[in-house]
């Protein structure tokens, strides 16, 4: 049987917030970068991909957690993949039913959610060891963190690359779009800029902490 946890976690606000900030899958763990770079050329694509990934994350974590005591260790990864692939297929049909334009814009990246290591990582590292409630809350936090990260990239890239946000014109007609921002290199530039900002904030916080400790002593 699968390796069951030594201790099961209590649900706290931290269970949710961890994925949003401290263990953000994109900005801290640098996971799932393929869709992060590929589909964030517009805000709408970022929102859709974020929500689709969150749904798969929450649904697969729930099922993995429910079945954690009956999945033998030797076949656990294969089982997780079947579960994740099922929910990805469901999302694929649902997005086609909601909007074909959106489905065409996201292209193959919907199907590729199955290979997103954030989801398999959550199943293996958390849901397979925790109760359903904690797994759902943790997956929701991770999904929210992933969606926020995609939005951070999507809004900046759409704004600079097309002068719009969600299709609404923000800059005047005289604005010359930075086409590179919509192209793949733009994804790397914007991700790099966000990582730089977060690292700067982190270091500034640490410096302040050290200064205050020094002042106390």
């Amino acid at each position: 049987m699968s390796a069951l946890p030594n201790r099961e976690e209590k649900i706290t606000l931290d269970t949710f917030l961890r994925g949003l900030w401290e263990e953000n899958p994109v900005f801290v763990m640098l996971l799932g970068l393929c869709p992060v770079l590929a589909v964030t050329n517009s805000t709408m694509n970022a929102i859709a991909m974020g929500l689709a990934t969150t749904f798969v994350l929450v649904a697969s974590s729930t099922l993995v957690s429910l079945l954690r005591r009956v999945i033998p260790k030797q076949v656990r990864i294969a089982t997780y993949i079947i579960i994740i692939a099922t929910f990805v297929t469901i999302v694929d049909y649902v997005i086609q039913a909601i909007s074909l334009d959106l489905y065409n814009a996201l292209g193959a990246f919907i199907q590729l959610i199955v290979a997103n290591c954030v989801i398999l990582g959550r199943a293996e590292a958390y849901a397979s060891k925790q109760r359903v409630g904690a797994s759902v809350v943790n997956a929701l936090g991770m999904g929210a963190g992933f969606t926020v990260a995609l939005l951070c990239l999507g809004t900046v890239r759409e704004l600079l690359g097309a002068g719009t946000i969600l299709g609404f014109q923000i800059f005047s007609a005289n604005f010359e779009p930075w086409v590179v921002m919509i192209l793949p290199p733009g994804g790397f530039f914007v991700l790099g800029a966000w990582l730089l900002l977060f690292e700067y904030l982190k270091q500034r916080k640490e410096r302040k902490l050290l200064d205050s400790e020094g002042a106390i002593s």
Partner: protein
Amino acid sequence: MSGVEQVQEPPRTPSFAMLRTLGGVAMMAGLLVVLVFQVTKPIIEENKRIAIEKAVFRVVPGAASRKDFVLGAEGLLPAAEAQAGGETIYAAYDAQGALLGVAMEAAATGYQDVIRILYGYNPACECVTGIKVLKMAETPGLGDKIAFDPEFLKNFEALDARLAPGRDGLLNEIVAVKHGNKTAPWQVDSISGATISSKAIARMINQSGQRMFPLIMRHLDRLRAGG
């Protein structure tokens, strides 16, 4: 051997347990997928129908209804009756039921990948009346302008596609020319910075038109009568 420590192996999982879990999960997965497929299928088909209708009405301005036909080896047949394969064409009619034009698909390789469009043809004026890009992977900001650049799309509002006297091909080949060099009504004024994509559009309409327009003209009476 007595000094060698015996390492206790964890108990082996029976194969049946593994088979049971994988089989059970796979069956549950299959059931869920089939359930969602059944629920979403009519909605997706309706979405596709609306998308085609919107595209047809866009490339044949003024259209109020459409009928699908298949043009193949058996000749022109309503889509529902066609057995053998062929090319689907969409005949568009106005509110009074008069044939306004015919929409059909065309494809050619662009800068990145195959570009697929739907375009309209008006047999009365023997001209192309509009295009709508269905699928493309052209460079954002450059090649993708073929889908929405108003100046480029104006090329296809009345693009000359008259048939040659023998009625077996076009009188003038539809070609793309450099931006600002359009002199004839059968030429397509390229987008500067997206020449390859513009040429692909002209090429696909020319290739498709050379083949399809004579066939459409041959079956014009049936198309006018609505099948």
